[in-house]
């Protein structure tokens, strides 16, 4: 469960938009992800805030299939 703790801290961002969306996603959906998806989520969290927000807002796509599928889930939050 420490994995969740670490993630929820990493979801603290500089943009309020991300605080809200990522926080909700981790709370509701993270536990249900498989290992590949979890890895993809971790990779997304390493992105700069502005890029990540553009992706979630649908103005930019992720480069990689797994991330793109995950983005769709995050967008639905």
């Amino acid at each position: 469960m420490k994995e969740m703790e670490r993630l929820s801290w990493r979801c603290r961002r500089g943009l309020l938009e991300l605080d809200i969306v990522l926080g909700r996603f981790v709370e509701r959906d993270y536990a249900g992800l498989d290992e590949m998806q979890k890895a993809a989520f971790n990779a997304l969290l390493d992105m700069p805030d502005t890029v990540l927000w553009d992706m979630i807002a649908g103005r930019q796509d992720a480069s990689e299939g797994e991330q793109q599928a995950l983005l769709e889930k995050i967008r639905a939050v």
Partner: protein
Amino acid sequence: MAVVKRTFDVVVVGAGGAGMRAALALSEAGLKVAVLSKVFPTRSHTVAAQGGIAASLGNVSEDNWHWHMYDTVKGSDYLGDQDAIEFMCRAAPEVVYELEHFGMPFDRTDSGKIYQRPFGGHMQDYGKNPVQRACAAADRTGHALLHTLYQRNVQANTNFFVEWMALDLIRDQDGDVLGVVAMEIETSEVMILQARATLFATGGAGRIFQASTNAYINTGDGLGMAARAGIPLEDMEFFQFHPTGVHGAGVLITEGVRGEGGYLINKDGERFMSRYAPNAKDLASRDVVSRAMATEIKEGRGCGKDADHVLLKLDHLGEDVISHRLPGIREIAIKFAHVDPAKDPIPVVPTAHYMMGGIPTNYHGQVVAPYDGGPEEIVQGFYAVGECACVSVHGANRLGCNSLLDLIVFGREAARQIIEDLKSNPHPKQLPSDAADRSLSRLARLEGQKNGESVSEVGAAMRRVMQAHCGVFRFPDLLAEGVRKIYEVAERAKCTEIKDKSKVFNTARVEALELDNLIEVAQATMTAAAARQESRGGHARDDFPDRDDDNWLKHSLYFSEGRHLDYKPVRLKPLTVETFPLKTRVY
């Protein structure tokens, strides 16, 4: 319990624009610098800044620092210190060109110069016509600033302590500051960081309000630490409210929406700004629009089942304008307000945005407090810059794009001052034997608390009280009640309990410690607001609607101990020019 100690020349708490600008100059001077940040440096809240940095480069329209200074003094509603304002406006072009040399990707004119855009409150010729003064990097100036400074700091060998939270200031019996006690978030390990100079750059505290545009990390930690160590907080009654934060979420809807023809309506569908500002209507200045919205809500013309917001209407602009000229707005509205603005109006409320007050400093970034005789004595070894500091260049109201400028100018200047001060202070002072005691006892209290209060409930209570009693418009009865209520919440905050006592990334513990800081700020803000019997800038009293220079042209100082207030004069004398005389602030 023995606490590990490390020693540096300088400890900087905060890795936003202010902290990183200072750290860069310090590391480049060969000093051993530690920079602490709760989050990865480039995720500091500075990343949210889009508008730009103000500087009178005159690249697009004629401009000079005197005009910029005039706008800033007027914008501050004359509460800004004119020596600091002159210092900032004069230094602005130089610090912006420095950023350019560091590699910051500013927008360019066709001839290759830094492009400048217009921004509210920035004028030519002492307030006559709008001027193009804001230097931006597309709509991500803050992001570009943080990335540029972070890269340079890495090259300069700054020691970053990422995901470390400073808990308390170390001050000895002479009142000198000798470093901080900090906790690693990953392990909950506590360490003493001893330093010959300690610089706070911890950012704002917008999270004391229910409706806030600020990210969750903006919990006023620097102010809480300073207050607990006996340092006063200056001008805490002055918060800037942005008119259009999304109701319930806080996320900012840019002024550009109203610039493009969007307007506000009440529950009767009335475009109410026509009554408050017949000419400028929805484009009147932030404080005017925010007060009008608050009045509509207070008088029962708010929307929704709780009648607690108004609506921002833009569907008449058409889908084309919305998606092309207002990129990102539709996504924000859909995500956070669950409405498509091409069809339905967006519920909005005036939302806490920027803290004008903070830790009192002079224009060299040295923290000053009334002890040892005078009202502005230097606290040895302690410096503050950025939104956590009160220099005071913003006075009662900040102009857009002047905050990023403040970070860069005073970040650099504080570093210069530290380098000079350390020359005459080559050895770290002996730490008192109880250096870590305050932090350790706070942690022990939290560890052992039984039958305590929930952090999230106390936090919610604090935000509700601040919102209802100390918002945009301040009423005497509500303020008096607010003071009583916020002190009650503060009592509850003394016995918060966390269920999870584990050591690894214990977010619950961090949030409990953050609440200790938030509640210091909330009490300072409420107490100072209840006392100030006038309206000036961001502080609007229903019972005292006018500015009162005879009695209130002074800075407030809030002391945590005894929650008492003191005042000190505004520094009306600039460095080289004549004082800008007091005038009514009209736009």
